[in-house]
């Protein structure tokens, strides 16, 4: 009834090429962004921001990066954890080695380190495909794990191998309070997600998708597979690298290589699959699912058990959490194999028909 595009005629291609061509969507998104920037820092508790929202934002960012590579370009990668690590350690080294290096350039440089690393480990994609590539990219993951553990130079020779940053500032403002960290992550995410969206809806994005969907045909219409694949690796690992640097700098504060273990590679891949391959929006859904759901479950389950008047042990809670989480993944996939983003758009389509079925 209210969600209609009736009457919204596009008179220019520009209008039709907007990110959200439907006015309702535009307002909704603008409202959401305003809400996230203004209301959330005022309303949300420190805990909510620190423990849930910041990880959510950072993982959304990383998931956007992974989606560029996996969802748009179709190169399944399990090296994301490594790209995050390279971003984090790269930024760290610039940050502590170069006197007076401000945070933002350090993050960008970290991202560029990841880009370089990503291109390097993206080279096999020119020959190897699909699951073979996925497994092969694990080489990047294990290599990075090893590199930051063994090559002391990267960790400034700290004996424990654990490194830390402190006194973060952005434009002279300290990045200490939960709200400031939250806003910083949100700003970075908003900006990069916008740029990423621009890329995927422009020529380069179409090249990626073409390579993903049918590489021979793509070559025939003049797309160079090498350029398309490596640029996807580059863009994707840049974004993932920045996310990694944020994760290390803003969230963890102090970290060791295991902070970017292979687990993260898998988790990121799962985020984009469950969120929706080839959808920027899906990255957010996926991150929410994988980051927030377990936390919610672990708080919710004891509560539910409490309602029924019995106490369940933490062991049982953690196990139940695993089972419910696994069950939900399967359930969502059965409901919509193309991920939450597709579920979302089908929902919208239904809404468009509502209240008249067909």
């Amino acid at each position, binding site marked *: 009834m209210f969600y209609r595009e009736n009457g919204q005629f596009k008179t220019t291609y520009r209008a039709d090429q907007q990110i959200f061509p439907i006015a309702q969507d535009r307002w909704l998104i603008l409202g959401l962004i305003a809400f996230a920037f203004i209301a959330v820092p005022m309303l949300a508790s420190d805990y909510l921001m620190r423990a849930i929202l910041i990880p959510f934002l950072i993982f959304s960012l990383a998931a956007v990066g992974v989606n560029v590579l996996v969802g748009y370009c179709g190169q399944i990668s399990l090296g994301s954890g490594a790209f995050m690590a390279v971003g984090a350690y790269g930024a760290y080294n610039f940050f502590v080695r170069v006197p007076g290096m401000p945070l933002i350039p350090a993050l960008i440089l970290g991202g560029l380190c990841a880009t370089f690393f990503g291109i390097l480990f993206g080279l096999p994609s020119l020959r190897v495909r699909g699951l073979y590539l996925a497994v092969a990219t694990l080489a990047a993951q294990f290599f990075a794990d090893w590199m930051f553990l063994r090559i002391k130079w990267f960790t400034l020779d700290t004996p424990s191998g654990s490194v830390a940053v402190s006194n973060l500032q952005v434009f002279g403002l300290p990045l200490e309070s939960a709200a400031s960290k939250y806003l910083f992550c949100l700003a970075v995410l908003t900006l990069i997600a916008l*740029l990423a969206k621009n890329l995927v809806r422009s020529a380069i994005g179409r090249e990626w*998708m073409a390579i993903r969907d049918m590489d021979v045909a793509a070559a025939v219409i003049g797309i160079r597979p090498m350029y398309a694949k490596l640029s996807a690796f580059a863009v994707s690992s840049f974004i993932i690298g920045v996310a990694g640097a944020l994760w290390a700098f803003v969230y963890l504060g102090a970290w060791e290589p295991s902070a970017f273990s292979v687990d993260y590679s898998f988790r990121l891949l799962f985020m984009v699959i469950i969120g929706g391959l080839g959808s920027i929006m899906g990255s957010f859904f996926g991150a929410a699912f994988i980051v927030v759901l377990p936390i919610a479950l672990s708080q919710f389950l004891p509560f539910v058990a409490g309602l029924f008047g019995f106490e369940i042990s933490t062991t049982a809670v953690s196990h139940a959490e695993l089972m419910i989480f696994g069950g939900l993944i399967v359930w969502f996939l059965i409901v919509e194999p193309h991920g939450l983003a597709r579920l979302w758009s089908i929902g919208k389509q239904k809404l468009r028909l509502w209240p008249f079925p067909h």
Partner: protein
Amino acid sequence: MTQKKIGDVVLNVQNISLRFGGVKALTDISFDVREHEVRAIIGPNGAGKSSMLNCINGVYQPQEGSISFRGRTFRHMNSRQVAEMGIARTFQNLALFKGMSVIDNLMTGRNLRIRSGLLAQAFRNPFGIGGAQKEEEAHREFVEHIIDFLEIQAHRKTPVGQLPYGLQKRVDLGRALAMEPQVLLLDEPMAGMNLEEKQDMSRFILDVNDEFGTTIVLIEHDMGVVMDISDRVVVLDYGKKIGDGTPDEVRSNEEVISAYLGTSH
């Protein structure tokens, strides 16, 4: 019927041979294609027609022979070069980008012409700073013409994987057209269409040929179509050329009749 100006040879295929292990897909094939003509390739299933296009296209690398395009001779070409020279094609087994919308599929055909770099595209904005947006709009306009032309307006934003087979074929053609090719290679563009649709498709092909002067190489099994709209026909059988000439010549060629046409035509 207006008399077409058929020009010089644009594409010359010389002594191409292509083998896959023991299978001889093509044996010593030579033929030429002239500017502005509609050149058909026919032959029974497995004769090597699609393989021929694949060779011209740089998808397959023939073991022997060469191909010249506008005077430049190649041993093997890579697909990108072929595309840059202005040769486009459609595929027999639909090679569309299934996850992309119709518009995006057609827009990929314009990619060779896009000049903005990666950063410009990333910073594309509705204010027109940087030029990426303008460029995008210009190409979009071009593509919209093709959409109108192919009558697929209603499906603009549908992912092509969800379209019925026949429409997918049209999108495939559209994508090739979007490249503004000088030579268009069509591999069974009318398979899976009914008569009405075939008529439309023939009309499209002839229009492209007339209006833009595009040279057309056409593979098709519907003899009615081939005989009606092509200027010259090559006939392949088991990888060998068994006939070449105007539709009438071919139609009366004994070998062609026994290998392909059968008696009923």
